[in-house]
């Protein structure tokens, strides 16, 4: 059942919060079994929260998210719940604190239903790298749901949950949202606290919402964002006030390599936008290079962030070992999957003596260049339109044998994490085989409100058939 937050609020008023929540979950277990989007679901925890919510509403608390069923990507901590990051390294680990976003959503009355499946430690673009198995796309179960927030996207797209949280380091909210036909938002870097998010790339990660409509993205973002002194990169979200957008449309060269349906869909939307708004045509010549820069920085950061998983204080510990060093090596070897190992090794190379200046330092310098380029393109009020992904959802197993092919599928998403600007993917259409096609809108840093309001207005004016 697909519902908006506004519809849920009306339902709570009319028939109470318990019935509203249980109505929303009527098909949850079947969907979860078919699509494999859940890593943890406990009816008792749901019941405890419903009881608590009823007390709070009776006490007269204003709870804007009362009745809204929320799924949480399994790398975001909820106190007392498992946080596995879809890895054998953390299978069975129970969180001892709430992430900042969870605290904020609890205050607003949200009810958490499940932890959601993902690529291991958020490394992947298909949710095929999970110790819990692959997540299937609700639009076509022979295809991937995208990644790494595949579980979050599939749960919302199937109607099993109202909204979900994902994390986005290189497109991990936007791409699965596009593949599954839902909305996914990566906020400006620093505006949503990373306290309680298990780190992948600390200068790239952001938590964001996945929903069935743009208004719910706005509601959730307004609740989740805000300064948190527990995250040293957190900034107070003082969004710049801008009114009239200029849409930046890609030239032909910037669409090279995309699937034919993706290009046709893009051109169709570009034409509608030209009829209704001011536009300019631009070239993004750094897109392909941004993939190299992203993977150099992300793997360097993750090799450091995952060094803490050593089998000593938490997580998987090897059962047979000789001495401390062997304990650490065997725990990590048994705990991590192949994609994680690949990225840790690359990251350690990038940071190693004799190579860190050539690769890591240079990548960070180029990152500055990309940010300046994009700022120049966008100016004060520019909104860039790109496909979210060069292809629709691919078949399960199609890309797992070729990591480079998988990395290249991040063509339109990784640059945004490098520069820290906000981006939202919307479901724009379907191809001939009914696979969802996503479009991404990007604006300057700290223009999140402007971006979301503009996209909402644009949708109203330019909505295409097939949605």
């Amino acid at each position, binding site marked *: 059942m697909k519902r908006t937050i506004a519809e849920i609020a009306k339902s709570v008023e009319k028939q109470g919060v318990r019935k509203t929540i249980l109505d929303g979950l009527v098909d949850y277990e079947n969907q979860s079994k078919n699509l494999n989007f859940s890593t943890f679901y406990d009816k008792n925890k749901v019941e405890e929260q419903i009881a608590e919510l009823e007390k709070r509403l009776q006490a007269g608390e204003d709870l804007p998210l009362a009745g809204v069923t929320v799924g949480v990507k399994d790398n975001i901590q909820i106190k007392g719940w498992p946080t596995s990051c879809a890895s054998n390294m953390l299978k069975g680990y129970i969180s001892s604190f709430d992430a900042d976003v969870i605290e904020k959503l609890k205050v607003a009355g949200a009810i958490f239903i499940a932890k959601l499946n993902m690529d291991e430690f958020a490394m992947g673009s298909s949710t095929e790298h999970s110790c819990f198995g692959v997540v299937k796309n609700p639009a076509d179960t022979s295809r991937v749901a995208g990644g790494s927030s595949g579980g979050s996207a599939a749960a919302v797209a199937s109607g099993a949950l109202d909204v979900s949280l994902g994390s986005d380091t290189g497109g991990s909210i936007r791409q699965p949202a596009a593949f599954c036909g839902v909305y996914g938002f990566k906020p400006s870097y620093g505006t949503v606290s990373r306290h309680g998010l298990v780190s992948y790339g600390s200068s790239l990660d952001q938590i964001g919402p996945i929903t069935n409509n743009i208004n719910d993205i706005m509601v959730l973002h307004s609740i989740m964002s805000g300064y948190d002194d527990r995250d040293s990169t957190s900034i107070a979200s003082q969004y710049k006030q801008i009114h009239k957008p200029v849409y930046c449309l890609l030239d032909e060269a910037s669409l090279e390599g995309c699937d034919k349906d993706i290009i046709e869909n893009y051109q169709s939307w570009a034409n509608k936008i030209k009829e209704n708004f001011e536009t300019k045509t631009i070239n993004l010549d750094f897109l392909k290079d941004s993939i190299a820069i992203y993977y150099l920085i992300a793997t360097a950061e993750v090799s450091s962030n995952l060094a803490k998983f050593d089998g000593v204080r938490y997580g998987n510990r090897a059962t047979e070992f000789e001495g*401390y060093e062997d304990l650490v090596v065997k725990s990590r070897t048994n705990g991590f999957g192949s994609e994680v190992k690949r990225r840790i090794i690359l990251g350690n190379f990038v940071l190693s003596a004799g190579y860190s200046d050539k690769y890591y330092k240079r990548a960070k310098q180029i990152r500055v260049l990309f940010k300046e380029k994009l700022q120049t393109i966008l100016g004060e009020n520019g909104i860039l339109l790109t496909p979210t992904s060069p292809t629709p959802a691919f078949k399960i197993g199609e890309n797992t044998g070729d990591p480079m092919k998988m990395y290249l599928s991040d063509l339109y998403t990784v640059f945004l994490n490098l520069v820290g600007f906000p981006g939202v993917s919307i479901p724009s259409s379907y191809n001939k085989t009914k696979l969802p096609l996503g479009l991404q809108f990007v604006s300057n840093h700290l223009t999140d409100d402007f971006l979301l309001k503009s996209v909402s207005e644009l949708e109203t004016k330019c909505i295409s058939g097939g949605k």
Partner: protein
Amino acid sequence: MKNKFDIERLAKLSRIELTPEETTKFQPELERFLEFAKCMDKYDLKEEVADSVTDNTLPFNKDQHVVSLDHHQVLKSESHCSQNYFKLPRVVKK
């Protein structure tokens, strides 16, 4: 250097053991990526390096005592604990 990507040395640095099959598989994959990363050579660079994508200077934490997590709460779910300590093999040999 004939082979700059010494995967066995890097696996040791990463504290991960690779199987022979993984070593055979990873070596060409990672070398292919490094070939792809040569695209960086064409850029004319400034000295400036972005450690943070925002314009903010990352703040130091205040030098003050703050309440941390409850030890009992944190340790109770861990099986390798005894009397508030994590148990592990001797690090410094006798």
